[in-house]
């Protein structure tokens, strides 16, 4: 019988996570499981609703990435109507998604992860957060907050103050950008570029001091999946799916997301409410894949904009083939912010963003539709089956955190293996911090992951080979 370390929530009810670390008879870490207790029941809850309401309902799944659900849901609706939406609507949706990338990645990097790089693993939790960062580097913290605001601003200028009421709808979007708002965005761009540059410098310095983290924080072979253009350029809302392996070779390309069930299997693990998707032709464990910034940069041949392309070239040198360390999700996130800024800038010169032709109209032309969009944390699938009246009969959603679940398990196991010495049977604070950061590399969309500025409520149990709890560490 193996031992187990359990990290469990103590204070939060929703979106909380629990981690079990299994020890073998010799006291070595044999395995780890990151259990997510979230998301259950939503798919069932949607059944019987008209599909047009989904862009209004699904952003409620997750308060952290409502835009991603909004867009995937509207796209699934497009597929049910079997329409191609007006080009202007597609551009505006993309613009909103880019805003979401900027705000979400800025939050992940500056608020949640940078305190760990800058303040170190041994800094006690109460200081190792954005407030600690403000204490140490006020300018950086402020710039990060502003960058996040910039992303949010784009979202709000398009979707209105409240993002929840569906701005994107099946067939298109409800309103264009206001010419005055274009000016606002243009004025803000230079500052945003400057902030990303600071972040790049910071991360380059971090790479010098954190080579061990690069080695240990989720560095293992796996597949990577993401959307790409027909020519292999980075995608975030359109395009088709590509899988590469850890050598960087393309193992499947231009897969139509509508047929995802043919190449993505979903294994249900009874310890977690999240389904663990895998690449079907390879089965598990070889079929394990990662999604999100790291994966998107591994599948993309170029970013499609000059500044981001230069960074991508530098990034690709960090791997032999694919870049396999999950610690480099952070780097990938920065490159995606840069790419997003460049694309936002490009759209500002496109007259279509003011267009009034924004919504295609049609009835139910297909009883089944899949909407796929890249959320900041990874590929998001909404799969709807409707009856002839447009009422939902079946809903399936595959979220980024689910797709990364297996990789997160492995990351925690790798960190634990490295830092828990044999027979130590202890869970010191720095270990807890590292495990927390290992999970944070994936920026999982658990409300707890962004809860309480940089603090994950955790309970750690070390359970012996016979299943007894040897040790427990809690924090919440």
């Amino acid at each position: 019988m193996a031992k187990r370390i359990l990290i469990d929530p103590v204070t939060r009810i929703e979106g909380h996570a629990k981690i079990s670390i299994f020890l073998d008879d010799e006291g070595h870490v044999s395995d780890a499981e990151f259990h997510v207790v979230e998301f259950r029941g939503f798919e069932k809850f949607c059944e019987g609703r008209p599909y047009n309401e989904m862009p209004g309902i699904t952003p409620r799944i997750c308060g952290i990435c409502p835009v991603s659900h909004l867009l995937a849901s509207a796209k699934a609706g497009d597929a049910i109507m079997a329409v191609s939406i007006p080009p202007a609507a597609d551009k505006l949706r993309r613009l909103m998604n880019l805003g979401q990338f900027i705000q979400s990645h800025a939050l992940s990097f500056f608020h949640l992860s940078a305190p760990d790089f800058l303040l170190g693993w041994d800094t006690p939790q109460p200081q190792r957060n954005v407030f600690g960062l403000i204490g140490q580097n006020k300018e950086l913290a402020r710039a990060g907050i502003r960058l996040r605001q910039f992303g949010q601003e784009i979202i709000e200028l398009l979707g209105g103050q409240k993002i929840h009421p569906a701005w994107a709808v099946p067939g298109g979007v409800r309103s264009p950008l206001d010419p005055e708002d274009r000016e606002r965005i243009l004025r803000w761009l230079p500052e945003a570029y400057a902030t990303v540059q600071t972040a790049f410098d910071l991360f380059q310095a971090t790479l010098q001091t954190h080579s061990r983290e690069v080695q240990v924080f989720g560095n293992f072979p796996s597949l990577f999946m993401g959307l790409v253009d027909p020519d292999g350029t980075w995608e975030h809302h359109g395009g088709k799916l590509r899988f590469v392996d850890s050598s960087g070779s393309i193992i499947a390309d231009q897969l139509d997301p509508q047929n995802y069930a043919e190449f993505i299997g979903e294994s249900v693990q009874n310890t977690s409410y999240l389904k663990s998707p895998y690449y079907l032709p390879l089965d598990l464990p070889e079929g394990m894949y990662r999604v999100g910034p790291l994966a998107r940069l591994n599948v993309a041949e170029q970013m499609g904009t000059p500044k981001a392309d230069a960074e991508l070239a530098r990034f690709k040198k960090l791997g032999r083939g694919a870049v396999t360390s999950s610690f480099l999700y952070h780097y990938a996130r920065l490159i995606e912010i840069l790419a997003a800024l460049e694309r936002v800038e490009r759209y500002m010169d496109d007259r279509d963003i003011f267009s009034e032709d924004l919504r295609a109209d049609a009835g139910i032309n297909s009883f089944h539709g899949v909407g796929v969009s890249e959320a900041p944390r990874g590929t998001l699938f909404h799969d709807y089956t409707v009856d002839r009246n447009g009422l939902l009969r079946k809903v399936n959603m595959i979220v980024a955190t689910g797709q990364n679940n297996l990789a997160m398990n492995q990351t925690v196991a790798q960190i634990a293996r490295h830092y828990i010495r044999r027979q130590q049977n202890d869970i010191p604070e720095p270990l807890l911090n590292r495990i927390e950061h290992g999970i944070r590399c994936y920026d999982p969309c658990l409300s707890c992951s962004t809860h309480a500025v940089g603090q994950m409520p955790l309970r750690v149990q070390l359970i012996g080979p016979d299943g007894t709890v040897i040790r427990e560490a809690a924090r919440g």
Partner: protein
Amino acid sequence: MAAKTLTIDGKEISAEEGATILQAAEEHGITMPTLCHLDGVYDVGACRLCLVEVAGTPKLLPACTTRVTEGMDVKTDTERLRKYRRMTLELLFAERNHVCAVCVANGHCELQSLAYSQGMDHVRYEYRFPHWEVDNTHPLFGMDPHRCILCTRCVRACWHIEGAGTLNVSGRSAGSHIITDLNQPWGLADSCTRCGKCVMSCPTGALYYKGSTVSEMERDRSKLEFIVTAREKKQWIA
């Protein structure tokens, strides 16, 4: 017609004989919450939000169906009335599934704005979470019974403005629901003229234009009034 004099909230007013308290009050700029009342169709006193106190009567009376009498002393805004109105609203919310945040009528809903204006900040009753089937069979309109408060405005508009008689009430008590024709799917209801007056009259998101998403259902009730006035004043008769 003889006039009656009465007092509403301490204000002396006169009203035509046969007028309801609600009509008399509105004529003199006194407002009160209503929900099942719809200008242009007769009143049924179904929602009980317009309840008022009348001196000398222990019962609370619905202003929309109670006729004025000589010397009547009416109060429309007392602590007791406020308490009952809130309770009534809470019961309405608890009865079906009113999830404003994802509702097509969010921001344009009479039930929602009443809950705000009457200070309903929570519901003391257990929600019943019933399960109903949404009827999306009609080519233009949809009906979601989860959001229906059984005010019957749609039924009255359908029978008495349009004259089609498609909509009806079926069942009893908590099982009551709006049906189309003899409980056929709306899309198969032959009598429906697709005029949309029911949709215009619905105070909540229960009736909607198909394809609407959150907050998209804005209704134009002036069309109903326009038709009714034209008919009553015989404006269309040359």
